[in-house]
């Protein structure tokens, strides 16, 4: 990350901002969509009544539709960029989960999106009666995939929002709301989906269940019967193309990253941690100090997990001949916010090259001495990069 940050700090800052803004737009969409699903706990009718307000507005109101699709594209491309810039793939579990989930989203999402589009082409009005029937009765495997999709997308988004919230000041109050929200909404949505399914399934099996009043799809597809397979095949083709393109781009980013890492000069850095849980290890240069510590199982505090936002990974550089460039703007801002001493640096931002380095943690790995009020003492410090 800091390769860019060193040369063009505003660009790195822009990238982070764009990532968060686009991510938040999609998170808002998913939240509303899940809220809509959760209404299934009451009845499919209520679900249908609220469909336009909660979901349809994103697909039929042009500015929102535009914002959503642009967000998706921008977010995906920026994610590829950060994948390219990652120095190590030995990342914390949350980051790994977010990464894997991110890669999986488009392949899982494509059939749903193109399927709904194909339904429009067939002249069917997309409503919950149609979709639920499709997912529970006609093609339960697709329904299963939707659940996987929902979970994957939600995990990806929630981790992103989390990381953003955690690294902000005074987020404790927001967190108190966000923690239950992030669990309750998908659970309610899934239960709503299950309950709606239980209302829809018996109809197919000849029992009593939910039937939509004035179903616009009662007459079946509006197009000629011989065109239907073609339209469906086209939708499937599109979904497959989208899947292949997205996975291909991810592979491309990984390959480019591999080439980039190959070009980093080799050498050895010898790092010594002093204080409680002291440790010494040798590492390849190119990684940040935090990544090196993680790679050698040295516990390290890091709330934002190495994004240079929270400042909890600060270390005191005691001695060592390893060359450390001056703090970038991002790092300087965070250090200033914490009233850090002149010898303090962010472990996630410094990349020691050849030589030795002796550091001590400012905040213990178990956060036992983490005190957010330290930041309050700063007078006009900007409120973080994010």
């Amino acid at each position, binding site marked *: 990350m800091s390769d860019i940050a060193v040369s063009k700090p505003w660009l790195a800052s822009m990238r982070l901002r764009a990532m968060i803004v686009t991510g938040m737009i999609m998170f808002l969409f998913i939240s509303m969509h899940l809220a809509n699903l959760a209404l299934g706990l009451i009845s499919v009718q209520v679900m249908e009544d609220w469909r336009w307000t909660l979901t349809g507005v994103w697909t039929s109101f042009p500015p929102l539709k535009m914002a959503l699709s642009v967000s998706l594209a921008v977010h995906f491309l920026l994610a590829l960029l950060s994948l390219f810039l990652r120095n190590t793939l030995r990342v914390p579990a949350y980051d790994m989960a977010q990464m894997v989930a991110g890669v999986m989203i488009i392949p899982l999402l494509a059939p749903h999106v193109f399927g709904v589009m194909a339904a429009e082409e067939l002249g069917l009005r997309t409503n919950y009666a149609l979709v639920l029937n499709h997912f529970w009765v006609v093609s339960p495997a697709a*329904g*299963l995939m939707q*659940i996987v999709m929902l979970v994957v997308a939600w995990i990806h988004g929630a981790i992103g929002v989390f990381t953003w919230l955690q690294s902000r000041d005074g987020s404790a109050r927001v967190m108190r709301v966000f923690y239950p929200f992030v*669990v309750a909404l*998908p659970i309610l949505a899934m239960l709503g989906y299950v309950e709606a*399914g239980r209302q829809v399934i018996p109809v197919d099996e000849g029992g009593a269940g939910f039937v939509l009043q004035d179903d616009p799809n009662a007459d079946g597809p509006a197009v000629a019967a011989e065109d239907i397979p073609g339209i469906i095949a086209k939708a499937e083709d599109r979904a497959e193309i989208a899947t292949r393109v997205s996975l291909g781009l991810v592979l491309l980013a990984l390959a480019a990253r591999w080439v980039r890492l190959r070009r980093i000069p080799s050498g050895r850095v010898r790092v010594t941690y002093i204080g409680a849980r002291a440790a010494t290890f040798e590492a390849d240069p190119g990684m940040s100090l935090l990544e090196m510590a993680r790679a050698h199982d040295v516990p390290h505090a890091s709330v934002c997990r190495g994004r240079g936002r929270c400042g909890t990974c600060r270390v005191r550089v005691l001695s060592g001949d390893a060359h450390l460039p001056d703090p970038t703007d991002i790092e300087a801002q965070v250090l200033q916010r914490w009233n850090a001493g002149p010898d303090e640096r962010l472990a996630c931002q410094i990349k020691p090259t050849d030589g030795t380095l002796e550091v001590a943690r400012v905040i213990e790995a178990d*956060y036992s001495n983490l005190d957010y009020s330290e930041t309050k003492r700063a007078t006009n410090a900007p409120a973080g990069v994010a």
Partner: protein
Amino acid sequence: MDWLRRFALILAVLVSAGTASAQFVPTTGNSNAPTTAAPSPNDVREFLRLLGDPTIQAWIADSANPDGTLDSGPALTLREQMDAQLARIGERARSLALAWQVLPQMPSVLSDVWVTELTHAQKVRSVTYILIFLLIGFGLEWLYRQTLRYPLLRIEQAPKDAPSQKLLGALLRAAIIFAGLGIFAIGSIGAFDSFDWHPLVESLVLDLLVSVLLFRVLTTISLFFQAPRAPELRLVPYGTAAAQFLHRIVQVMAFAIVAAFALSYMLSRVVEEHEVDLDSSLATVALAQTVVLALFVVLVSWVCIWITFRRLPSLCNIEGSSKALLIWRNFLIILVGVVFALWLTGLFGVMWAVLIVGLAVPGLRLMRAWIDHFFDQSTTALHDAHMAEAQAALDAFDRAEGFGELEDGEPQPETPEFADPYAATRPIVQRGARFLFLISAVLMLSWAWGVSVLDLSSDQSIMGRVLEVLIDSIVALLLADLVWTWAKTVIDKRIADYEPPVDGQAPGPEARMITLLPLLRTILLVTLLIMVVLSVLAAAGVNIAPILAGAGIVGIAIGFGTQSLVRDIVAGIFFLIDDAFRLGEYIEVGDLMGTVESISIRSMRIRHHRGKVHTVPYGELKSLTNHSRDWVIMKLEFRVPFDTDLQLVKKLVKKVGAELQANEHYGQSILSTLKSQGVRRMEEFNMVVGVKFMTKPGEQWLVRRDAYQKVRDAFEANGIRMAERNVKVEIDGGDYLTDAQRNAVAGAAQEAVQGPTGPKAAIPDEP
């Protein structure tokens, strides 16, 4: 790679599997031995009455087989029992052979059943439900874990010195994680259960949810002991690499076992649903299915054992003992094989016995090593702290020496000896753990054999009797052993810790216990032995009431005969408990005096200071005077003439007191030094000046000697004369008497005053 392909095949078979009721649950293979006692006429009448009872008739009708026969009663003789057992094995072998024949068709048959039971949509929906409810459980658990994230992190990462802290931390963490599992269970199983479902779908999904929970519980237990990612909480004596490896092995084993059970139970659900179609071919397929599952578990176990013993030496840096490792590996592999073979032959009781006993042997050894390690760690931690303290003292000394702050000749501080505080606890914990381990093994064994420990007495079969006797005896022995180990350790430690008093010093209160403890130990041993023997006899069916009564009568007879002996012993115990005297004390009993030289059960020996030895039975003691307790006051008197300067006397006595106090030999024993008490009384010809001092017992004689001598010297040096008895004879108009006459008169008067002089009463001697 061939075995891998076979493995994949087996796995595929398992996944597509569809029917069979598992034979995992053991059936009672033994304990069917009969009774042959003839009924009494009363019993016969009662039996006839019962037969007439309509409820009993209904019950018999209910419990009859579908074809109208009742289950044939247990075989009558050992021979018949053997035959029955052999027949069962033969039956089992035949069905196994049949199962072997249908094995190739098994996948197709199972998939057929699977297809007919559930539609495709239902199957996929079941998977969806499983996924959704698992996710709900995980989500709630995550929320819970998130709220406890920092406490958990602190527990995991805070440095821990003592193993007790480690254990506490591990327990806390396990509690937190288990509470999370509970929430997971509520979130997944509870949420699922609150909907109404298609019965088969419901049971399938529930089975899988429960399996996931079971798997997680097993891995959490492994986590509790091994803590692969939190070295501070690890309770087992090996490093992170070994812990991570073994944790993975445990996960694999747990997965294999839980999966096998889940599949076989799932299949039994389908069969239950199927009910009607429980014909022979399906039963055979079920058996084949179960055999394949069991084989899968056995293979996984073998592979795990093999890999574990291969990797472990390099992970734990074990050297030299490769032969022992090899033996244990082979033992475990053979054990698994034997258990599987027994299961195949259908001897479930024997199988459980072999499994439990086979695992108990290495389990006991491991547990012993583990507890030892735990205590070693504690002792090492304490020892390190102790050594650091001693080193700090030494360093301080060296520093002081360097600065020249010390007086010459001050010795270097010695390193105090390190005493292991767990020396007494360790064997008790060892025995206690062994006790619990063996008891649970015995309970499992009895459960596996279908013998309920609680209502054993109703079981009249030979096997039941033997088991009952065995279990009762083992429990009695283990309990007695536990109590005995505890008592012995405590008593031995107290005796070992006792330091006999240095010559000339009064012994401490421990001396009393030292006389009592060996006696107590013997009494306890005898009592425990008698109790164990009696309970074993009682368990074996011997009526112990006559023995007890006989013992009581003999006890009374002996008691009468040895009345005085008993009185001596009991009185002695009470004197010792009262702490009336201790070894080395100077006591007075009636008209006997002397130092207590030895204390035995019945009597004590007192040595008079002139060498006579008295032996006094405790029963004879009415009251006892102890001269060696705490302090002694001694009062002395001096007679001085009336014209003595009392202020001077006071001053002189004070000076002498100070001198006595400063004496290097007995100065320390003086509790309150010599001081004047002024004039105690006036006598005809002089004043009596009293002085007194207080010393530790036994020191007063020496001090008295010096006090007399020093006071006399001081008086003389200061012109104070001791009053002497003199007679002043006044003779009216005696001026004219000659000296000779005066003397004669004085002599006559003295005789008249003093009376005839005779030998005085003996003054008590010093000891």
